[in-house]
């Protein structure tokens, strides 16, 4: 076991790859892997990206948002109109059946909406459903959804997380049965579920085929492989056809091998640093001082991190939301990289020699480390506290976290309320607790007047930037790596649409 031997040993690994012909196209099965064990396939009882991927294949929403144009189209509903601010009437598509043969009609919609809108049923992501009060049947193919209060992004939710379940089946089997044997109207039906480990999907012959295409690839086979190196190894071996969420460095190397298709797509997710402006963690802490927060903003070379680590289509963001989201004001205060200015600001704030502070993070450790390196340069010594998401979120809810690197995927919703509404309205994740901002955002989220919403969000986002409550960092991107046999055009919402895959 000499050093050169070992070095050589692991280096030749790369020369491999000329593997046996892939049998996947032949048996019409697309193979991919999940990194995480998905808790349940029932979309209302998980909050994971993997769950969304499966849900988009298995179920349909009432509406559909075209991922390219952003336009809303009818899906299980063909027409929809607002009767008043809180009543939406929808005409349903006729002739649709569920995978188990149950016909789709108004009863399914009424049942699903009433079930998920009832807080007692414990839907995991309440935000997705709590805006609806109930649904009423008008006739077999007409329903009305009644809201608690005006809710501007209703269409976005009806096209995304709110999918329709078969009423008779769900009433009989409940979430546990749905998890093991999911039934929907979507382009793929589920042929087997091994909870958390293995899922097999099969194209649904009876799919209604509008506005989404019917599935082109016959079978989808999804295994959970927790170690990413193992995923790449299986990809080299031809046991996987598709890798998603490939880290930037690995994607570059795979691209350089010239044997695979590497695609990069933007994501709605942004990264940000939240600072304890309201003094929950430490009433006299440095982060309560706007000068210090601005110093942090000037100290970190976000562009350098994007160029070296995040890569892809990511860019530095200045506003506390994703560019493609509705009402995400871009004309806000910007803090350029300027360590001298940062030091001056720190001195002005009374910290000429800097200070020491805990820095909490839960993902992208290298990015966190790089930021710590920059902060160190201006005298801010950080101790990294790297926790599991749940533990960090818990600490944040209790207001114990003064300074943290966070990301937010906005549930793939293209509306600023999905991020600003969650973080600046006085809730447990609100580190700023700015009454003015809270009032603006609440007002914006209770009106359907689009111009008024844009104006209110603009005011809120400008103040967030002026006060440097957050340091918005960068937009995220996702790398997809595919074998040469696969054809797929990724979209900008981190969602992999199996029905859009085909063989070359």
């Amino acid at each position, binding site marked *: 076991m000499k050093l050169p031997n070992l070095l050589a040993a692991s280096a030749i690994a790369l020369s491999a790859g000329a593997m046996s012909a892939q049998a996947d196209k032949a048996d019409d099965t697309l193979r991919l892997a999940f990194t995480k064990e998905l808790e349940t396939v029932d979309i209302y009882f998980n909050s994971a990206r993997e769950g969304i991927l499966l849900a988009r294949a298995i179920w349909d929403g009432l509406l559909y948002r075209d991922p390219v144009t952003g336009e809303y189209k009818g899906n299980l509903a063909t027409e929809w109109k607002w009767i008043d601010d809180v009543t939406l009437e929808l005409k349903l598509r006729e002739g649709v059946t569920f995978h188990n043969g149950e016909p789709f009609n108004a009863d399914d919609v009424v049942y699903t909406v009433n079930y998920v809108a009832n807080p007692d049923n414990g839907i995991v992501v*309440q935000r997705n459903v709590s805006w609806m009060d109930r649904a009423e049947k008008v006739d077999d193919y007409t329903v009305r959804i009644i809201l608690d209060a005006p809710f501007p992004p209703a269409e976005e939710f009806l096209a995304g997380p709110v999918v329709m379940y078969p009423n008779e089946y769900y009433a009989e089997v409940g979430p546990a049965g749905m998890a093991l044997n999911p039934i929907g109207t979507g382009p793929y039906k589920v042929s087997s579920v091994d909870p958390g480990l293995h899922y097999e999907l099969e194209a649904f012959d009876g799919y209604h085929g509008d506005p989404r295409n019917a599935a082109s690839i016959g079978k989808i086979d999804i295994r959970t492989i927790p170690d990413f190196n193992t995923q790449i190894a299986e990809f080299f071996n031809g046991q996987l056809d598709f890798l998603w969420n490939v880290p930037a460095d690995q994607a570059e190397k795979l691209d350089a091998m010239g044997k695979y298709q590497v695609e990069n797509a933007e994501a709605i997710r942004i990264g940000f640093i939240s600072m304890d402006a309201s003094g929950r963690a430490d009433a006299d802490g440095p982060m309560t001082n706007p000068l210090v927060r601005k110093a942090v903003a000037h100290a970190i070379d976000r562009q350098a991190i994007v160029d070296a680590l995040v890569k892809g289509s990511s860019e530095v963001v200045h506003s506390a939301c994703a560019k493609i989201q509705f009402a995400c004001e871009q004309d806000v205060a910007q803090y350029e990289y300027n360590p001298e200015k940062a030091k001056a600001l720190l001195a002005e704030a009374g910290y000429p020699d800097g200070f020491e502070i805990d820095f909490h993070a839960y993902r992208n450790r290298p990015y966190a480390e790089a930021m710590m390196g920059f902060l160190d340069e201006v005298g801010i010594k950080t101790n990294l506290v790297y926790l599991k998401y749940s533990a960090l979120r*818990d600490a944040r*809810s209790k207001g114990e976290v003064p300074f943290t690197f966070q990301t937010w995927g906005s549930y793939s919703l293209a509306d600023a309320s999905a991020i600003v509404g969650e973080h600046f309205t006085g809730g447990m994740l609100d580190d700023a607790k700015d009454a003015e901002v809270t009032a603006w955002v609440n007002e914006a989220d209770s009106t359907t007047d689009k111009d008024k919403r844009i104006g209110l969000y603009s005011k809120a986002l400008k103040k967030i930037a002026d006060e440097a409550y957050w340091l918005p960092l960068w937009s995220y991107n996702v790398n997809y790596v595919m074998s040469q046999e696969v054809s797929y055009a990724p979209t900008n919402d981190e969602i992999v649409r199996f029905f859009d895959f085909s063989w070359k």
Partner: protein
Amino acid sequence: MFRFILKRLGLAVLVAFTVSAISFALLFLAGDPATAIAGENAASEDIAIINAQYGFDRPLIVQYLDWLSKAVTGDLGQSWYFKLPVSQIIGDRLPTTMTLGLCAISFALILSIPMGVAAAARPNSIIDRFALFIAVVGQAIPSFWFGLLLVVFFSIQLGLVPASGSGTWRHFILPTVVLGYYATPAIMRLTRAGMIEVLSADYIRTARAKGLPTRKIMFKHALRNAIIPVVSLAAVQMGFMLGGSIVVESVFALHGAGFLAWESISRNDLPTMQALILIFSMFYITFTFLADVLNAWLDPRLRVG
């Protein structure tokens, strides 16, 4: 013998109980369970609802006793993460870990006992040195690195075995080697040391003097005595393996109970975690208990203790 077994059993139950109490207290402090159940994208109101639903506001001791009284009747509760009965999930995963553990311990024994015997037969020979080399390397190489190196060679490069999964026996080859190798050094050392000691004992010298063939002396007389501590050690190692195969299961995507335990920690899935710790410690206790009984049978002198 009966009294001996009864006494050991009583102790075993007490140990299991203590382990479960300690781990319950530890795990419960490991972060807010409600947040874990709600998941990454959950909003604040989701968490409040869950807190009320699951009764996390009750005192810790009440929650523990509640859990214990159900566990005794075989009801291990519902997984907070999968929303399925814990017994069902563990039942799905345990066979993988058991298979891996049994293969690995067999691999370790098959590798280490003959090597230990051979090394003891001729101390300081090439064989002895080779055995020692195998042992020290086994102790020093981090198992995840070893595992990934094997994947690179035997799976990617040579295409001989699958890199991950648990579908066929071929899937178990690499993980068995990695996990088994981890247990090899200790067993081999003990075999060697035991054999050297026994071989210098009077009755072996007598046997030799009487002209019995070496092979017969080695395997019939010497090994039978030298194996006693090895049995205990193998039992201990087996117990460790079932709980300690986390890393190996993670590298090879084996989805056994070890990996489930680790994932359950990160998901704060207390019912699963709690059940697994109980099961792992029960395994350990059972194996050591069986080893004690086996040893008492092999060597009646031990029955007194």
